[in-house]
């Protein structure tokens, strides 16, 4: 883990990992989407509408997890000044926001046929909506401060303040009487979903995770290169810019 803090080693390692991650993403989606949308069985109560589950659940699982990763990166940079952690935190924020938006949108589309309402103000939905706004706030705060170091520190502090929402999201379905169902996967006694639906769900979760990992590594590499160009362009001017561009072409 410590070697990852070195930007050069990170670039080398991510260059080796990226083709595999990209391949895994493609394969997982290629296997998961047909399985989920076509070949898995319709539910006995929800019939075909249950297929939204395979889009909604992985996004809803990953949205708070990405926030947790962002908070860990923020903490590392704030407290231990880990070199690449601020880049990781900056890269994760828009991804988490998009995942939360997908979870909310697909949830609303699923809620209308299932519950009869696009939206209810129950604890799980409200706390995920709050998470979405916290993501937007972190992104907005970073963009509105010009000095990059100050912007990073400010958004990291805000990220840590927002961490309190994560346990609220997770435990909201147990603390309150909510319309949203409780955990069906991680329970004592094992998952309560039957195999023919469980496997497509697992494959889709794997696909989403691989997608986030691929996008994260790609974005971090781009940001590192951009920072190098900025710093060298400031010092040596356009010749350095051309050299960098050639080296990474």
């Amino acid at each position, binding site marked *: 883990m410590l070697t990852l803090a070195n930007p050069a080693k990170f670039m080398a390692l991510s260059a080796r990992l990226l083709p595999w991650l990209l391949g895994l993403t493609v394969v997982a989606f290629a296997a998961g989407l047909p399985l989920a949308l076509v070949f898995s069985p319709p539910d006995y109560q929800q019939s075909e509408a249950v297929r939204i589950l395979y889009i909604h659940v992985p996004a809803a699982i990953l949205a708070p997890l990405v926030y947790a990763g962002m908070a860990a990166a923020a903490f590392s940079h704030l407290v231990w000044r880990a070199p690449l952690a601020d880049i990781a935190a900056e890269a994760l924020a828009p991804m988490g926001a998009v995942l939360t938006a997908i979870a909310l949108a697909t949830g609303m589309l699923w809620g209308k046929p299932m519950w009869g309402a696009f939206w209810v103000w129950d604890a799980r939905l409200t706390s995920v909506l709050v998470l979405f706004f*916290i993501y937007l*706030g972190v992104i907005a705060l970073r963009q*509105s*401060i010009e000095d990059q170091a100050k912007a990073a520190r400010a958004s990291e502090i805000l990220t840590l*303040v*927002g961490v*309190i929402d994560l346990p609220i999201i997770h435990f909201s379905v147990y603390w309150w009487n909510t319309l949203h169902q409780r955990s069906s996967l991680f329970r004592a006694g094992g998952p309560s979903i039957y195999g023919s639906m469980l496997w497509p769900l697992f494959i889709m979760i794997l696909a989403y995770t691989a997608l986030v990992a691929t996008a994260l590594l790609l974005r971090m590499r781009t940001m590192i290169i951009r920072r190098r160009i900025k710093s060298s362009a400031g010092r040596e001017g356009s010749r350095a810019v051309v050299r960098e561009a050639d080296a990474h072409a």
Partner: protein
Amino acid sequence: MSHAHPLIALLKRDLTLAFRTGGAGLSLAFFLLVIVLLPFAAGTDPALMRRIGPGVIWIAVLLAVLLTLERLFQADLEAGVLDLLVAAPAAFELLVLAKALAHWLAIGVPLTVLAIVAGLMLGLSLDAALALAFTLFVGTPGLSCTGAIAGALTAGVRRGSLLLTLLVLPLYAPFVIFGAGAATLAANPTPPETPLPAILLLGACSLAAALTALLLLPSAVKSQVD
């Protein structure tokens, strides 16, 4: 040198500034005006006022507090006072917490008292208005602490009040949910339900906000100074 001296001095300075330059008075006036608009907007049916009055009073308190947060640290940052605070002989952590405390004393407490009047104006019984004020008394310290962190983070941003609103309102959601929930239940009693669980949860939110401010407010303010 005793540490109490700079703290008390900072508290006195902030409170004097708030009352002298009208920051406290303006937020009270804004709060009352919003409350006055509610019967115009929703009609004067007493049963309706009992159902939505406590919630709207809570929202009006939130808005009044929001207005004051922008200048909490921005004014001092522009005047160079924050640099002096960093170099002060007292612990920096305690000094920034003194600013949050001053904000609560100057803004939160007067709003809590005025909310009793606002509740009576909307036709709540005295018991309900006092219960509403109690929920505000428990919740406004948390509002000041969370708002102080957000105010410190956006102190250097030009025209940052809109950004401040976006940052702070999601964090204020639990306070409104529990505080307005408890106040509405007190105004429309349905035994055997009591407002007590909501008030306890509201207190927990305020304590969590205070703890977060203890940990993160000094870093937030320091990040604006260099």
